[in-house]
């Protein structure tokens, strides 16, 4: 653990607090960074909204401050006057890349999830915090909070190559903050491409992962599963590429005649084909056991900024098989030497056959993955990068 340096007090701002296991990777990342900072001796306040669902943004949690371990979590109500209908209409246009006006962009962010109470707290008590860490980039709460004390605000963008990233208001956000804490080099490159050098200041920090041991035969034995399987974990939706994975596995089984199953965990709909085993939400230990027993962890998403589950599968000693179009996941595979990448079905078929038939290749990729995550994403290394990023340049208080 790092000793407290110049930074004594930190505020984290995120639309939701990852109290359970049902939130996204960005929320988990911010919570973990906050927890680590608190354990390292800093005073940390986690400022969030009372919402649980990112679909309704309804206030479901009682406002106020509560402790969660070393963290003080402050819940603020979501503004009740948001025009959800207008928000969704403009969002649809942005999503279709229809080209919206600046006024519509502003209306979209104004009707996104916002909290005046949270912003008022930052205005009144902002002086108490040496640094403010906010994210992810595309929510009203983040966007508004970043404008309050920009010179000591650091954005954890979790940026993807998606239509929202191309809005002009996002250029303002990335350029306004003091710096960014990126999850990967491709994410920083994307910020530089979209917002110029001024929008890509900051360091690559990432998130730490605790090593674990998992028995590769435990899941199959418990399930009575004799056939080999590949695994996927996380949200199941077209943006994550799960329909593509199911289609590819279906074609693979039909063309090669091999009985290979797909074991999926997480939430969201998935095509219920006979070879798909949907485990839904499982404990971390069960997830790790599923990963450890898989012949490969297939992650076809092209919109990731870090790839937590891919790195977890590396820790489980399982090689990754990712989409070549996903810059971040491919970067993780290339850098670690623990995974392979496919452009289309023919690549997928040939690579999966190799992984299924070549035990030595699988073992060697698996060993590299474990070493890579233990080296690059040990919490000590991540904490060092995190505080280095925050301390690199002493921001001036805008007064």
């Amino acid at each position, binding site marked *: 653990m790092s000793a407290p340096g110049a930074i004594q007090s930190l505020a984290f701002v995120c639309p939701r607090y990852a109290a359970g296991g049902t939130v996204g990777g960005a929320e988990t990342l911010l919570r973990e960074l906050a927890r680590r900072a608190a354990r390292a001796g800093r005073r940390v306040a986690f400022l969030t909204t009372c919402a649980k669902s990112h679909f309704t943004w309804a206030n479901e949690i009682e406002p106020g401050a509560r402790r969660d371990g070393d963290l003080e979590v402050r819940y603020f109500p979501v503004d009740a006057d948001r025009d959800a209908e207008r928000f969704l209409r403009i969002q649809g246009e942005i999503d279709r890349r229809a080209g919206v006006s600046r006024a519509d962009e502003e209306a979209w962010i104004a009707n996104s999830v916002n909290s005046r109470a949270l912003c008022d707290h930052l205005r009144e008590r902002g002086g108490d915090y040496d640094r403010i860490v906010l994210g992810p980039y595309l929510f009203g709460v983040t966007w508004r909070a970043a404008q309050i004390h920009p010179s000591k605000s650091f954005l954890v963008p979790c940026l993807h190559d998606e239509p929202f990233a191309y809005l002009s208001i996002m250029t303002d956000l990335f350029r306004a903050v003091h710096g960014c804490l990126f999850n990967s080099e491709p994410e920083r490159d994307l910020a530089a491409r979209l917002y110029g050098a001024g929008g890509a200041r900051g360091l690559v920090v990432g998130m730490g992962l605790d090593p674990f041991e998992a028995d590769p035969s435990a899941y199959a034995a418990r399930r009575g599963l004799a056939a080999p399987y590949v695994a996927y974990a996380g949200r199941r939706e077209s943006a994550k590429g799960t329909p593509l994975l199911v289609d590819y596995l*279906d074609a693979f089984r039909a063309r090669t005649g091999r009985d290979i199953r797909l074991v999926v965990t997480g939430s969201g709909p998935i095509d219920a084909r006979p070879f798909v085993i949907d485990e839904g939400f499982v404990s971390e230990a069960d997830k790790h056991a599923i990963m450890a027993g898989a012949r490969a962890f297939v992650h076809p998403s092209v919109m990731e900024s870090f790839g937590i589950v891919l790195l977890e599968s590396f820790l489980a000693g399982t090689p990754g098989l990712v989409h070549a179009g996903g810059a971040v996941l491919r970067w993780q595979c290339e850098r670690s030497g623990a995974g*392979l990448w496919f452009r289309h*079905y023919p690549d997928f078929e040939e690579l999966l056959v190799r992984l299924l038939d070549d035990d030595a290749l699988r073992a060697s990729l698996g060993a590299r993955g474990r070493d890579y995550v233990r080296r690059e994403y040990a919490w000590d290394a991540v904490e060092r990068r995190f505080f280095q990023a925050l301390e690199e340049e002493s921001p001036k208080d805008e007064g």
Partner: protein
Amino acid sequence: MADEIFEAGPGAEAARVVADVRETVERKMREGAYADARVAAAERTNLVRLSTDESFSAYYLRCLRDAVYVDISDFEIRERRARFAPLLVRMKKAIWSLLKFYTYRLWSQQNQVNGLLVTGIEAIDEKTEQRIRRLEARVAELEKRLGERAP
């Protein structure tokens, strides 16, 4: 890119396997190993992901061309249940001979439509490509002229 950067690093083996597989895939593509309706169907969601990759759209159009025609030829009629198998096979054959005329007519029309659609898409693709090539040449020419004019 990966091949150059990871020549000796931890990623060398992975990059080598990927490069090796790509070579195999190129060869098998030329041999028509992926000319399969199942491959074309599996790629439907990949189109959006690689929409900027020109080689992918060319490959997908090839897949589509190979997969476009529904097989309407006769097929072997079998029966898995051992009991009454010969009788059941004869019955199925009789039903098929009655339906054949209608399904043949239906599927041959479908094949015509599919074929025309693919030809149409290929024509649009070719036209767009030619147009882009012409525009690129024009831009290059204009840039050259501007460069000559600059002091």
